[in-house]
């Protein structure tokens, strides 16, 4: 399996972080960065990373099943994650979730037929004081209203990049 030179360079860096006989430590970071490039954790990827970290494909599969961010099937180009945990719930997180379902016609962990969007109701993302919060891929959005959510999703669907959307600003940078 081949990866981009940038990802190969990253893998090399990851493997150098840990003692030479502890390559397995690099497994989870490698999985998540590889998923960003490949789209999901494929069987082929499992074989490849098992080989590179001195583990068995079964050990890798076991790990993949544990972590909520690791996906066996590709999510949408924009993976919309909405927190409905307690702090967000108290500030309208469930309304935001309902709006997202209505707007996209998707449910929890469903992917649009054209692969543009996917939706996930997530647990606390560490933005409790600025609730309700959501993430699109790795970008954070704070204090999102259902209306802003519509604008954000419409703009993304129209091909705008997150940083070009003035009405709803991503906060993480």
């Amino acid at each position, binding site marked *: 399996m081949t990866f981009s030179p940038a990802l190969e360079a990253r893998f090399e860096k990851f493997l150098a972080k840990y003692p030479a006989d502890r390559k397995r430590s690099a497994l989870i970071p490698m999985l998540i960065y590889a998923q960003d490039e490949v789209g999901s954790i494929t069987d082929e990827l499992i074989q490849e990373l098992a080989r590179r970290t001195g583990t068995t494909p079964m050990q890798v599969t076991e790990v993949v099943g544990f972590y909520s961010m690791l996906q066996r099937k590709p999510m949408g180009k924009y993976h919309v994650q909405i927190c409905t945990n307690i*702090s967000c719930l*108290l500030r*309208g997180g469930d309304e935001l979730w309902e709006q997202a379902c209505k707007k996209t016609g998707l449910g929890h962990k469903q992917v649009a037929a054209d692969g543009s969007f996917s939706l996930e109701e997530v647990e606390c993302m560490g*933005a*409790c004081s600025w609730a309700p919060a959501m993430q699109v891929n790795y970008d954070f959005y704070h204090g999102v209203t259902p209306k802003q959510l519509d604008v954000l999703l419409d703009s993304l669907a129209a091909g705008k990049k997150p940083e070009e959307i003035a009405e709803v600003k991503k906060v993480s940078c």
Partner: protein
Amino acid sequence: MYNQPHPLEVKVLTRRFGLPNSRSIDTYMANDGYTGLKKALEMTPEQIVDYVKLSGLRGRGGAGFPTGLKWSFVPRTSPKPKYIMVNADESEPGTCKDRLLIENDPHQVIEGAMIAGLAINAEQGYIYIRGEYRYLIELMDKAIEEAYAKGVLGENVMGTGKRFHFATHSGAGAYECGEESALLESFEGKRGNPRIRPPFPAVAGVYQSPTILNNVETYSAVAPIFQQGAEYFCGLGSPKNGGTRLFCVSGHVERPGVYELPMGTNLLKIIHEVAGGVRGGKKLKAVIPGGSSCPVLKADECDINMDFDSLAAAKSMLGSGGIVVMDEDTCIVKAALRIMRFYAHESCGWCIPCREGTTWLRKLLQRFHDGMGTRSDIVLIGDLSKNMLGRTFCPLGDAAAMPTIAFVEKFRDEFEAHLDGKPCPKENISRLVAA
């Protein structure tokens, strides 16, 4: 910073927040940065540990264990390599402070970790950052790079001939990995199941080697303790609860936000003065004082000093500093249900009382919330929770059970109001308020 600071704040860990380019090493070093490390480099490991003890610092991850004492448990003379681990897997509902500490002042975290390294002769440290915080991993990588370029990290720390290396490590989404032994498993590339203890990480942590494992806020406090003095830090808090705390106020208040306040600040003062009071002039109903794992306080229990000992005396916990405020229109059954859905989702499945207990509690609470509960369910919810206590490898089972017991005991009337096929009596009101 995502909220306005408040004049009542005592800025120690957050004092560089808001400075231009606060995350750069130049800003850090122009504002006392790495002077604490310099001081520690001239001390013996014993002196460093004693100095941390003197500061009264207690672990900011949730348990509040005295940090100096924790460090003293590490067998310094062990022939094994020693490690420093920074827990940045912040995921306790209600908690959003570690994110700010890394985002605004990453070098303070590095300095704290390096001082911990000197205390046990460790030459390698890692920071385990939750996968969702990708931008913080990149930001921390940049800070680490700067520290290497300036000769702070590396083979010759500040020209002293000592060695210390530091690297980021990404998680991939699992609340359980914030628990120290599960974090260590995850760090080794495995499922995040907890380890049985003893041995504790101090003796057998990273790669079964002696390890100091603390929260981001704890390490962030170590730097100013050495920069500004342990006595100064200790004097800021209440007895046996040194320093300040980053309180994350969320929920039904006018000005939710993260505020750095002295340990022992009165909870009502935090809610009414710092956070601007309950939203819309509503009455206060309940407060979760330290993240979702902590037993709820009723409004009349909120005249309390926010430190580890006062909260423990009130049968709750200071936890991770996440203050979740609920107004009079909040449905407690709905709150309890949402919290249990979280624990049922995050239970790693390793221990049966937790795996089965959280799942059954979720089902029971859901049925109750849907208006199909029975009077005996109220008793069953309480009994089931109590049966989970102390019967699991890690505290997740307790963390799910304790708040549930408190919800049922303190708000039994609300559970009873859901009976006899009644739908959630508060539902319509809370919808209107939130809209």
